[in-house]
């Protein structure tokens, strides 16, 4: 069991991504173990590109991405979600013509079903349960296009959770939220760890970074310059240099 826990869940090695002449990711290595909480941030460039490469919405040019011992190669995003690799979008992208509840049924039917047997009524139950967790239960039948920004972010997170992932990548879920809302979401995400889900958070909100993370990785100009526990990263010379200048 202990051995299994030490096996990396996600192993990114040497991933490179260029846009024309611009190198957005330069030879990135990153390892995430099961149930681990990793924050990538708090600032710097290339984070969203990395998320997109891992989720499969962008193709990396060099390097490989292994998930759960399997090379993702050129698997399309939906294949990766089905393996248990879910992501949220920085700007919420709800299915606007559907009710809040139906939004969650999509990943439940298309992704979660791949590894958990779910009947029709169980899907509705599971969706409702998730909505209770994020505090949207009373809006379950409202159209998602009418939600407030905060509720949309919660829905975005719930929809990723509905895929029943082993690893959830959250892309700036907290931007623009109030302190108490940040805490709500932190509680949610911490709860995921207890359910055996590893989490990568891309985050600016410094309080969230320090409170949440067991490990912090820092990307600057497409290169990873630090990776370790929060305190050691904050003390890292290169990080200080990158943030405060020479």
């Amino acid at each position, binding site marked *: 069991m202990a051995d299994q826990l030490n096996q990396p869940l996600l192993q990114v090695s040497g991933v490179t991504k260029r846009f024309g002449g611009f190198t957005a990711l330069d030879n990135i290595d990153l390892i995430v173990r099961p149930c681990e909480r990793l924050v990538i941030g708090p600032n710097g460039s290339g984070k969203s590109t990395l998320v997109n490469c891992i989720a499969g*919405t962008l193709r990396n040019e060099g390097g490989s991405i292994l998930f759960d011992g399997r090379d993702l190669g050129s698997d399309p995003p939906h294949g990766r979600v089905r393996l248990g690799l879910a992501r949220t979008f920085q700007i919420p992208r709800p*299915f606007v013509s559907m009710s809040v509840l139906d939004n969650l049924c*999509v990943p439940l039917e298309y992704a979660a079903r791949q590894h958990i047997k779910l009947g029709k009524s169980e899907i509705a139950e599971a969706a409702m349960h998730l909505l209770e967790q994020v505090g949207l239960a009373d809006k379950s039948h409202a159209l998602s296009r009418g939600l407030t920004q905060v509720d949309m972010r919660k829905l975005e997170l719930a929809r990723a959770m509905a895929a029943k992932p082993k690893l959830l990548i959250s892309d700036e879920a907290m931007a623009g939220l109030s302190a108490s809302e940040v805490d709500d979401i932190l509680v949610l995400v911490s709860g995921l760890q207890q359910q055996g889900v590893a989490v990568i958070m891309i985050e600016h909100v410094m309080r969230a970074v320090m409170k949440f993370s067991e490990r912090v990785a820092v990307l600057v100009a497409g290169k990873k310059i630090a990776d370790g526990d929060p305190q050691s990263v904050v003390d890292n010379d290169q990080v200080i240099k990158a943030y405060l200048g020479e």
Partner: protein
Amino acid sequence: MKNRTFAALAFATAVAVIAASRLIPNDYFFSAAYTVLQFIILATAWNILGGYTGYVNFGSAAFFATGAYSSVFLYKALHAPLVVMIVTGTLAAGLLGLAVGYLTLRMRGVFFAIATLALAVVLYTFVVNWDYVGGARGAYIIQPRVIPFGLPRYIHLLYSAMVLMTALALVIARAIETSTIGRGLAAIRDDELAAECAGVPTLRLKLFSATVSGALMGMAGTTFPYYLAYIEPSAAFSLSYAVNSIAMPLIGGMMSWVGPVIGAVLLGSVQQIVQVTISSAWNLLIVGVLLVAFVTLAPNGIMGWVDAWRRKRR
């Protein structure tokens, strides 16, 4: 209602309608009803890709004509029975939908739309130059003298076939709409990237949708050569099919299978009346004006009003 119940009900209604129609002595009724039913199928088929999935097909006429001309080919080559024609034409148009979809559905949606515009002209040119099926001059299709099931005239048989095909199209559309596939298609329509990232195999579903939609449009065209008894390219490829199959779902409402039916019955009947009383050019103008009026002023169509009214009452 379960899909199986709905299917049983739909086909029972179809049979009842066919039986009841025997009491109508007027042949004009059959030919008018045939046209309206044909539009119901076209609108329903268009809506599977357009309304459910969000991809605009301007080439309804191409798929319809594929069905019609595959029947002409079978008539010339084998004197095949009507059932064989219907099945073959449906499959051929489905394959065409799959092929066009495969070429263009990997790109932004608008390229699919433009490709379907192009498709109609390519196929038209092809048929015009294909002498075996009559080329530009057209071809005569003689209705068989022996009419099965003791029906008095051949139009009765065509009409009955159309009623059954309409029932089939509605059953399929509703089944898709209420299934997991339907939810996947709706997710694609709302946000394709988000759908893909929620585990929906978007390309496969789009191809499925394009294939079924194309197949049903083709099916509507398979009996057309017999209906006219003479077929020429400009009749089979008439722009009226393209504009009607877009206008009907948009006017009726695109979110459910009911919308296209409402739109088709309404617009189809209006056109039948105008065609008789004024002229066919005017009825095309009416369709165009209604299309633009609805799409700008009432984007959710008639069913949109109904839904809004229902929500208010709740």
